[in-house]
């Protein structure tokens, strides 16, 4: 910064060329001081060494619609593994002539998600639309009604399964989490301690142990002859797991409510349920929307763990393509592809959460 004494009002000096425009920006953001200049040079070198070769591998030398034999002789990435196996990766073992059904279910889901993005549309009717849509999606997957042939849930797989586990998991875990949070705040010692033990127990163990429990221990809990299919069991494990985390987030919101709100509700003569439903929860849940979305993101990512109990979700279908001798050895390409899918979903959600955070920040 140079300080120039103002000479007179008429002869205003323009700032030097080196402190405005592109040069000025580069100077103040990349080369201010020897340390930053060094950092810039090092980073520039690293980018120069990594990005062009990666670009060459991924785009210039890559093959998109070839056979695996052609890929083996190529230098670049073999994206052909994706188009060649896209149906199996996306839908798993779902009968191929029926695959329009999970596709339609996913389209409904995406359309609804985009529709509900706008907070102005959050009305009671939207909740009914969602309930209806969830039933419709379940029906499309399961079939057996309205002339749709039934598809056994053992054949469900791929992206629909991943989305199903996350959407139904979150829909069920949210109310359960709210109930647990209320239970933890309760003045009744028995209820409170049950909720505390549940929440802390679940939060202290990895999701894998619950999934193991659902796959090997849960069948022992049921009376003889009763079986529950393994997707539902994994679903229950995910719900129970996510609910504990949601409960902690909601508890944060409940603790953020001032005591005056409770007292005002009481002085109006509202009972506990009315107080909670009309006064406390609407405000508390609104405060915690951003952390709730990050719980949702991690729950979405965590559905990939069902691979370990051999459900055919997106990750598992990709792995089984990779275990096919024809396509063995192209795991980088395949994993990058599904990483992009996960990234797109999570990035969308986290961006949305950031936007909501800004909108809801009322600064009172």
């Amino acid at each position, binding site marked *: 910064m140079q300080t120039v004494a103002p000479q007179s009002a008429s002869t205003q000096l323009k700032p030097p060329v080196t402190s405005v425009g592109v040069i000025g920006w580069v100077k103040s953001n990349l080369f201010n001081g020897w340390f930053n200049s060094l950092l810039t040079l090092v980073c520039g070198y690293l980018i120069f060494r990594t990005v062009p070769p990666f670009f060459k591998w991924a785009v210039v030398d890559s093959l998109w619609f070839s056979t695996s034999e052609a890929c083996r002789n190529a230098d670049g990435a073999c994206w052909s593994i994706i188009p060649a196996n896209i149906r199996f990766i996306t839908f798993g073992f779902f009968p191929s002539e029926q695959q329009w059904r999970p596709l339609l279910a996913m389209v409904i889901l995406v359309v609804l998600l985009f529709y509900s993005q706008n907070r102005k549309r959050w009305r009671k009717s939207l909740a009914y639309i969602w309930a209806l849509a969830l039933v419709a999606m379940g029906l499309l997957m399961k079939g057996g009604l309205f002339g749709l042939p039934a598809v056994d849930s053992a054949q469900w797989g791929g992206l629909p399964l991943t989305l199903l586990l996350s959407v139904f998991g979150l829909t069920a875990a949210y109310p359960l989490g709210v109930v647990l949070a209320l239970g933890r705040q309760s003045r009744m010692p028995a209820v409170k301690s049950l909720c505390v033990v549940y929440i802390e127990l679940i939060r202290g*163990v990895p999701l894998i142990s619950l999934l193991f429990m659902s796959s090997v221990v849960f069948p022992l809990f049921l009376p003889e002859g009763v079986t529950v299919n393994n997707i539902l069991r994994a679903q229950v494990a995910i719900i129970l797991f996510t609910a504990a985390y949601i409960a902690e987030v909601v508890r944060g919101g409940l603790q953020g409510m001032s005591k005056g709100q409770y007292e005002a509700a009481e002085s109006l003569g509202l009972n506990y349920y009315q107080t909670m439903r009309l006064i406390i929860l609407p405000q508390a849940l609104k405060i915690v929307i951003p952390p709730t979305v990050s719980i949702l993101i991690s729950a979405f990512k965590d559905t990939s763990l069902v691979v370990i109990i051999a459900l055919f979700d997106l990750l598992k279908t990709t792995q089984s393509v990779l275990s096919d001798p024809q396509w063995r050895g192209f795991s980088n390409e395949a994993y990058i592809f599904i990483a992009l899918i996960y990234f797109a979903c999570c990035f969308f959600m986290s961006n949305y959460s950031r936007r909501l955070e800004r909108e809801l920040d009322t600064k009172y």
Partner: protein
Amino acid sequence: MHDAPPSRKVPFLNDPANRSIIYQTGVLLMVGVLSYYLISNTLANLDRQNIATGLGFLQKEASFEIGESPIRYSAADTYARALAVGVLNTLIVSFIGIALTVILGTLIGVARLSGNWLVSRIAAIYIEVFQDIPVLLQLFFWYAFFYEALPGPRQAVNPLSGVFLSNRGLVFAIPVYHPAYAGMGLALLIGGVAVLLLKRWAHKRQDRTGQTFPVLPVCLAVVAGLPVLTWWLAGAPTQMNVPVLKGFNFQGGLNISPEFSALLLGLVLYTAAFVAEVVRAGIQSVSRGQTEAAMAIGLKPGQILNLVILPQALRVIIPPLTSQMLNLTKNSSLAVAIGYPDFVSVAGTTINQTGQAIEGVALIMIVYLCFSLATSAFMNWYNKKMALVER
């Protein structure tokens, strides 16, 4: 009622105390009935399948091999020992992982706040990308990377002399054991204790007389000097155990398996993205005025960081950092997916072999609960130590 008593009794059901008792009895009854139902079903099923309950199986012979073990283990050992190996493996990967994560996460968090546009953008992209990809997928990716992209042992990459990188893992030379090394460890320990005492003494002296003492150089000299001195006094042994290619794999040196490397790399890169956000939020929570005030009273940059910024930022950083450390420990259970013998993986094998599903899953849960409780107890202690002391 023309003759109502002046103090009307509250009807039994409207009394909050009575209601609360009724509700609680109801809830407990429900939980009790449910658990009775589940337990009786379970007992009937176990009886039918002839599975013995209890932890007796722990003393039986495990008869499965474990790929890597910090303690001596063979298939002839008991299940208890196999599980202990699993616990140790989990602890090793968690400890190293946490240490590396904190370092990498802090670096990226600071880089995110850097005035250098390029550095800050790279850090932001790193954080966004690694947070939004499931950790299991990252583990698979690195595992596949180690197996597919790296050459076999015969064509191993040899970046430094004595270091080989191949699809059998990372092999590097280690010093041959010599009694001097035990002495060096002891010297390091003594040096550490001496440094603690010295710091306390210097602090007291400064409080009393106002004179400062060059703590940092002296401490560094003590910590580094004592072991080197021991090494020199013991005859300066320099013999190294260099890995050599024999047949299809390396002999000698220290081998870090691809499973371990993939697990560690995946966990560290994933968790570091979250830690970076935590660190960034912590540093941003200290207002600029604090730095300016510290400059105004004439503190040096190092002192500003040590005495003003860090104590305040750490207070914000520690609680979420704790939960990230716990996440890393819990995520280390994903080792089972890529075949690193951590506790879950060993317990899974045990369940498959013995059929003791309930005991196995209960053990997994108990062990992880203990890790969680121990970590949060330690971090609570540390947090209390760092907490704001109102004077």
